[in-house]
């Protein structure tokens, strides 16, 4: 069943002209947010910026919590339901890299711009947009910049919030910068690992035939690649990064291998984990070296079905704004919602390139369609169109 497009977004050219000025405010906030470094566990300065913007928009309960989330509440006229919008605060980039942003006629370039400064900037202007469009929601709208999302953060911010909030959440939207058209309604099972190799300086290299961290970790990589991966349930092992070595002529005694298992099946994730544990134990015993395998983060598979009214609503809104939708499983904040049995969805706001690179860029023009999509979804959720019958 197709959900009804809310009247407020029915006339695209009218709503585009009404929110145009605020799109400029969004761009300004996008630039300023992007230029504040926010590596995972060090999001404080970005939190202050977001909270200032929430306060200026007269949100209530603007506050942070034990994990460093940035929170604000737009009270609804009835307030018996709560909709949570979330974008993560942290980036993959350290404070040391150049965070300056450049703005061209139709694109903005900078580290972490699409992942996820666009999402955060959207949250900062959303209250102004709703006010300008004279949209008065019955539900409370909770806006959240979530801390400790990436890497070892393991979506700690949203998990903490959902476990401790006194506001029961009716539905959630994860606002992602890139890519407009993406709909994530299910989260895949995920387990993230770090293998570390660390030898004492007095290790006797002649005894066991190994020549340092690189061949040892390479041996593990080779064996991981030989594990048969099924097509169904869809499963993958992502070998993300390997760090070791400092010079041409020095045998590295330390090394780190980071990788991730993703699968639609939790059982498959666990099976692969056991296989990799065996590989590490075997290589460790052959060379007589302590190699540690640590689980850094994990998610259970879950989410809402493709036919859920919330997914339908997202598809219809994208069709309405003339954007082709596609389905993509997610491992981000969506997992925290599905763990709690809360219907939620991840959507993108614009197009972009070079995700997670220093020179990532996002396009400016599509942001308007992203905003219209988001407004339509909030209004639809608020009036109950996305409830399961």
């Amino acid at each position, binding site marked *: 069943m197709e959900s009804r497009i809310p009247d407020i977004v029915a006339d695209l050219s009218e709503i585009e002209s009404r929110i145009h*000025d605020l799109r*400029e*405010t969004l*761009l*300004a*906030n996008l*630039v*300023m947010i992007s*230029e504040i470094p926010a590596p995972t566990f060090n999001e404080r300065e970005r939190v202050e910026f977001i909270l200032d913007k929430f306060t*200026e928009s007269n949100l209530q309960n603007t506050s942070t919590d034990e994990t460093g989330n940035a929170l604000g509440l737009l009270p609804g006229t009835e307030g018996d339901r709560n909709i949570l919008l979330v974008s993560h605060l942290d980036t993959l980039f350290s404070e040391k890299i150049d965070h*300056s*942003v*450049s*703005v*061209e*006629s*139709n694109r903005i370039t900078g580290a972490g711009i699409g992942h996820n400064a666009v999402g955060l900037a959207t949250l900062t202007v959303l209250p102004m947009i709703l006010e300008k469009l004279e949209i008065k929601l019955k539900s409370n709208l909770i806006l959240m910049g979530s801390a400790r999302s990436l890497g070892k953060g393991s979506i700690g911010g949203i998990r903490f919030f959902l476990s401790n909030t006194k506001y029961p959440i009716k539905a959630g939207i994860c606002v992602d910068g890139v890519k407009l058209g993406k709909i994530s309604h299910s989260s895949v099972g995920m387990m993230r690992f770090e293998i570390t190799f660390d030898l004492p300086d007095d290790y006797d290299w002649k005894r066991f035939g190994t020549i340092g961290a690189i061949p040892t970790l390479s041996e593990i990589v080779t064996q991981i690649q030989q594990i048969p991966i099924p097509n169904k349930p869809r499963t993958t092992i992502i070998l993300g990064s390997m760090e070791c070595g400092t010079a041409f002529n020095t045998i590295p005694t330390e090394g780190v291998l980071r990788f991730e298992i993703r699968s639609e099946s939790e059982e498959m994730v666990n099976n692969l984990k056991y296989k990799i544990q065996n590989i590490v134990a075997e290589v460790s015993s052959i060379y007589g070296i302590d190699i540690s395998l640590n689980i850094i983060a994990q998610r259970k598979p879950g989410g809402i079905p493709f036919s859920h009214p919330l997914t339908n609503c997202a598809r219809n809104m994208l069709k309405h704004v003339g954007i082709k939708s596609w389905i993509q499983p997610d491992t981000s904040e969506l997992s925290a919602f599905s763990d709690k049995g809360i219907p939620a969805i991840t959507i993108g706001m614009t197009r972009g390139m070079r995700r997670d690179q220093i020179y990532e860029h996002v396009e400016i023009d599509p942001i308007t369609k992203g905003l219209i999509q988001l407004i339509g979804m909030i209004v639809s959720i608020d009036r109950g169109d996305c409830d399961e019958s």
Partner: protein
Amino acid sequence: MNPDKWLKNNTFHHSEFSDLKTLVKLKEKKGLKISLCIPTLNEEKTIGKEIVIFKSELMTRAPLLDELAVIDSGSEDRTLETAASFGADTYLAADILPNIEAKRGKGENLWKAIYQLKGDIIVYIDADIKNIHPRFVYGLVAPLIYKDEVKYVKAFYDRPLAFTDGIRPSGGGRVTEILIRPLFSLFYPELTPIIQPLSGEYAVKREVLESIPFPIGYGVETSHLLDVYKQWGLQAFAQTDLDQRVHRNQPTRDLGKMAFGILQAFLKRAEAHELIKLKDHYAQVLKQYQAHNNNYESIEIHIREEERPPMIEIPEYRKKYNIKDQPSGT
């Protein structure tokens, strides 16, 4: 005015003015209009960000600025298109006062802004600032709004390389420290507390801007300081610490050209103020050298520091602003 007293009373930090609501309220109470002028030449990489930030933060969110204009010297890239796409008023310097023969130089753009823009205060911001922030504008215009006697506000910046607690290095760039500060110390000691006399960011009241001549090249900032000082005294100045400014660093060879132009503007004024006596003519060719293996090649650069007269002497300006009296001259 005692320079130490001036330093204490007329030196500010931008954070003192971050309450934009109060600032805008006072600006409106005083009936002031404020224009921002960004002079450009091939700045497509940085201009977009400046326009987006200033327009959103200082026009939409807090209406401190009444006008945001880019005055361009003839960029060959997309500077003007980019600026216009984000809502700036864009002008080609050559199109302003078309009956006056056009000249190329940053000072030319600044001078023509006085004719083209409407503000009672004009704030000039360079287009190459990588860490642009609204403080670059409100930090400069605020002293003009709060203190009626202040007419000209200069920016200064931190240049932190390494320092220990308690001592914070504050100074200008290389040209300031090896040229301007020694010259000021010799001839205009009252002006030495101006920490960065060559900074390209300043806000000025129209009554001052229209009354002073404008070198169109490197000497514009130096000549402003000397002319304003001569006419209104040290008390007309204020300066604001804008923290860090990240921008392109200039090669030493370019600084030589800059110093050469500045010296011309300085010497002209020092002579007019009867502090030195020059011969009738001095060279306007800067000689620099570069080596090719063991051969040394001379490079001659003609730098003539041309000046525009005070805008108030231009008939088109007098007509536009309905100024009836005869110009008083400087």
